């Protein structure tokens, strides 16, 4: 006579409690509030996507009400914002942008196909937040090239931004090899020590669009 046969109801009861406890454990497992939607490879691809940048002449369209599908978020602090900002921009510091209401707002804006343009004093200031929001899956978030500084300088002729393309960065402004290289007689040991990364044999990828933001 097996001991379990004596109390079938008790066995069943303990079994059910056991299962319930495990299920509760899984359900209440702490999930991070924000999760990445873009893999690391995708995150790097985004950096080459010209569509992810917002040019000053596109900004001109927004300010002239030609394009109404854009909202501007100024991610600087309130002091800088009150000193001067792009007309129509909202002041939301990058960290506040991650609270529940703003995330929901970003999701709705994304769903309705509205572009969100982040800007700081310059492209560098908005670069980090822009990258992270893109990686969180908000494909409608773009970064303003030139930032507020370029806008402030060209307020009156923004649509002719192509005349002053100083808002396009990542280019060398000098011929470094001529200007900055040590003269032949000096510092030759530095040349020897120049390390090279290990040569990796890789299938030649099609040249990723050099450009983007």
């Amino acid at each position, binding site marked *: 006579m097996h001991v379990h046969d004596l109390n079938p109801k008790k066995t069943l009861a303990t079994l059910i409690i056991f299962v319930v406890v495990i299920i509760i454990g899984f359900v209440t497992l702490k999930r991070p*509030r924000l999760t990445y939607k873009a893999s690391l490879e995708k995150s790097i691809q985004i950096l080459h996507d010209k569509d992810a940048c917002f040019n000053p002449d596109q900004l001109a369209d927004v300010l002239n009400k030609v394009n109404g599908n854009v909202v501007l978020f100024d991610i600087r602090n309130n002091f800088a914002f009150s000193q001067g900002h792009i007309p129509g921009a909202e002041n939301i510091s990058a*960290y506040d942008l991650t609270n529940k209401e703003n995330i929901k707002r970003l999701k709705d804006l994304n769903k309705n196909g509205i572009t969100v343009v982040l800007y700081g004093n310059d492209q560098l200031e908005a670069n980090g937040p822009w990258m992270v929001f893109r990686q969180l899956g908000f494909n409608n978030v773009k970064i303003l090239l030139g930032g507020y500084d370029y806008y402030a300088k060209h307020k009156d002729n923004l649509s002719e931004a192509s005349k002053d393309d100083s808002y396009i960065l990542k280019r060398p402004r000098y011929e470094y090899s001529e200007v900055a290289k040590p003269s032949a007689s000096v510092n030759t040991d*530095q040349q020897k020590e120049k*390390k090279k990364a290990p040569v990796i044999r890789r299938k030649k990828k099609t040249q990723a669009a050099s450009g983007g933001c």
Partner: protein
Amino acid sequence: MNRNYIFLTLLMVVLAAGTIFLKEEPEYQQINAEDLLYDVIQPTRYVTTDQIAKMIINKDPTLELIDVRDSKSFEKFSLNNAINVPLDSLILPDYQEYFGIPGTKVVFYSNDDILADQSWVIARRLGFKDMYVMKGGLNKWVETIIKPQEPPETAPETAFEQYQFRKGAQIFFTGSKIEAPGSSTKKEKVTVRRKKKTTAASGGC
């Protein structure tokens, strides 16, 4: 067979199968998005060209310069002892051995600072710490170290000290001849006579 045992076995099998559908291990260990965003808005990762020049001149062994431009640009010119890790290759495991070496400070640089900053964000997402970005990049390097600008007369003394340092760095990096002291007269130090205040509230911060 006893029915309870069959039931128990089935239950265990189901639960075990369920754990397969739990969160998959991501390819690389990454920090979570909220932490990344917090780190990304700190300005503490930026270092100046002066600081880097100083470290190079002092042969600081903790400095690890990473040039994130393409290899062609790197071949044409690079900073002393810099290592070329193009941004597109940053996530390849072979290149990651350059990061996370204890005791080293990794400093990303590029033509400006955008590419370097973008590399920093990717590397930070991978969980690496103690990384920095040279503000202004090589363009700023030329404008401050290679071709330093003499500060105007009204500038504070620290600006002149910085200019002296930069002139010395210019010679170090380019081996240029020291200019005849035609224009660079040592500025007369203006001594400010101050009335000695009664030490009322000396102390505090």
